[in-house]
């Protein structure tokens, strides 16, 4: 069942076209990898879907135009994890994750200390899902890069949104933390969420994603099953690289190999 549908989405800024006529669909329970070289427009497309920047074209969420949602409805439906991993104040991990419940929060008269039972449940579930429960008392400025990545992911999960947009959540993480974060995303998709994740690592993309969308110069070069998108021709066209394919326990994976087509 199609959850998110983009048709002819175009983003222009300062007279330049950053995203041109992108159309794609994401089903419920699907983990879609958004890949492409630097400057391809991956982050721009994610921000447009999150309704953070203006765009032309249509976006539908379960059949309803996204721009018709109120700010609060939209905030409850779409969780967005940006590339910028700074936290502005050294608030505690628990407080940070609780910010994911902002779309459910009332006015100032309801202090942050008195969170509703549903909020508390969502926060605890998110802390456990990303395995940061034991860090909950820590100040966010004392976390390592890997811990911070998981805590920020927990914040996004706490929204309990149907659509999760994650912009390079595994950049700058060591292999173990990369696997952990991707596994969390995989699990969330299995529970029914639609997830779009921006990735640079083709091996992780081929290993974890159900489908891939390959962007280059703001256009979709290839979309669909992993084998199709990571074909020698489209890898050469988009990245100018060749990759080797391997197989382990029936699962295929790709490893970037050469700056020329690999033969």
């Amino acid at each position, binding site marked *: 069942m199609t959850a998110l549908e983009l048709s002819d989405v175009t983003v222009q800024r300062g007279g330049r076209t950053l995203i041109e006529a992108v159309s794609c669909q994401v089903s419920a329970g699907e983990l879609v990898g958004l890949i492409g070289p630097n400057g391809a427009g991956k982050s721009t497309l994610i921000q447009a879907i999150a309704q953070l920047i203006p765009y032309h074209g249509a976006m539908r969420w379960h059949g309803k135009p996204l721009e018709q949602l109120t700010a609060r409805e939209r*905030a409850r439906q779409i969780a967005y994890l940006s590339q910028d991993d700074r936290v502005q104040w050294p*608030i505690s991990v628990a407080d940070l994750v609780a910010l994911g419940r902002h779309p459910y929060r009332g006015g100032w008269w309801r*202090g942050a200390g008195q969170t509703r039972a549903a909020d508390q449940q969502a926060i605890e579930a998110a802390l456990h899902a990303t395995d940061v429960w034991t860090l909950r008392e820590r100040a966010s400025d004392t976390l390592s890069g890997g811990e911070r990545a998981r805590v920020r992911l927990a914040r996004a999960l706490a929204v309990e949104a149907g659509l999760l947009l994650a912009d390079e959540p595994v950049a700058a993480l060591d292999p173990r933390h990369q696997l952990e974060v991707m596994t969390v995303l995989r699990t969330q998709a299995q529970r029914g969420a639609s997830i779009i994740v921006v990735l640079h690592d083709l091996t992780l993309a081929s290993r974890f994603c159900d489908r891939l969308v390959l962007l280059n110069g703001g256009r979709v070069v290839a979309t669909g099953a992993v084998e199709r998108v990571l074909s020698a021709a489209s890898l050469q066209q988009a990245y100018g690289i060749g990759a080797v394919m391997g197989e382990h326990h029936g699962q295929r994976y790709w490893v970037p190999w050469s700056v020329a087509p690999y033969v």
Partner: protein
Amino acid sequence: MLNHLLFLALLLLSVLSLRFGEAPLSLAEVLAALIGSGPEPHQVIVREIRLPRVVLAWLVGIALGASGAALQGLLRNPLAEPGLLGISASASLGAVLTLYFGLALVSPWLLPAAAMLGALLATLVLHVLTRAGSNNLTLILTGVALTSLAGALTSLALNLAPNPTDAQDIILWLLGSISDRSFDDVWLCLPFVLIGLALLFWCIPALDALALGEAEASSLGVDLGRLRTLIILGSALSVGSTVAITGTIGFVGLVVPHLLRRAVGFRPGPLLLASALGGAVLVLAADIAVRLPNSGREPMLGVVTALIGAPFFLTLVLRARRDML
């Protein structure tokens, strides 16, 4: 818990403030005067001289503390304070101009009215220049420009003051004080302070969310443009109207949020209420301190808050530097 302690301190200091002065009164005498019994002179001293002073200290402190906390949260810059936006300086300029042209003698309402007009004009400039698609940097730069301009014009007024008494009036007003104020002054600024505070407190959830940065805060439903407008307007109304009555009282808006930030777990939202109470505590304490020497001439309140504030600020810088090394 923290807020309860601050409120308790505020009440204790208020009682102290009502007792202290040229004619020290006992607690019983103060209470009797408050409820309208006791000797006539005591009632006049407590209800017409000291009580407005206490209420003004509350209002000034609450406005400066809340606005400082809100601005630091909005700009995510620990150096932000109400003075940064040029609202205080513009309000001062309005007041100074009435003193310069001798209008303050025509009607007691003219000086605060002119100061509020100054604050309002500065707010309009800020709003127009930071309206569409702008960012925090535009806001800070506009504020710096407004502060410099208003400061230069104030200096010019001092420079060209027709006679030394005018110049002295201007200087004394600029130093900031809450002595010799009446309930007329309180009623004049109270509505603006209340509206301004309501706007600032309205922003508490959004300020919390802003800890995640602007993009993620927007994705959580925070309207950044509206948040900026609300905080500029709230600061202008509350701080502008109190500056109009008391003159410039420095460092409270900067120092108080810093003092309390750790105690509220660095959360920008809860910091707002704590800073409002803390600001009132600091101003009230400073106002008692200026009366302690009892040498006939009080040091001005604005001078004392800056005397407490500046060394504190230097230690803050030193500590930050040590953390970085």
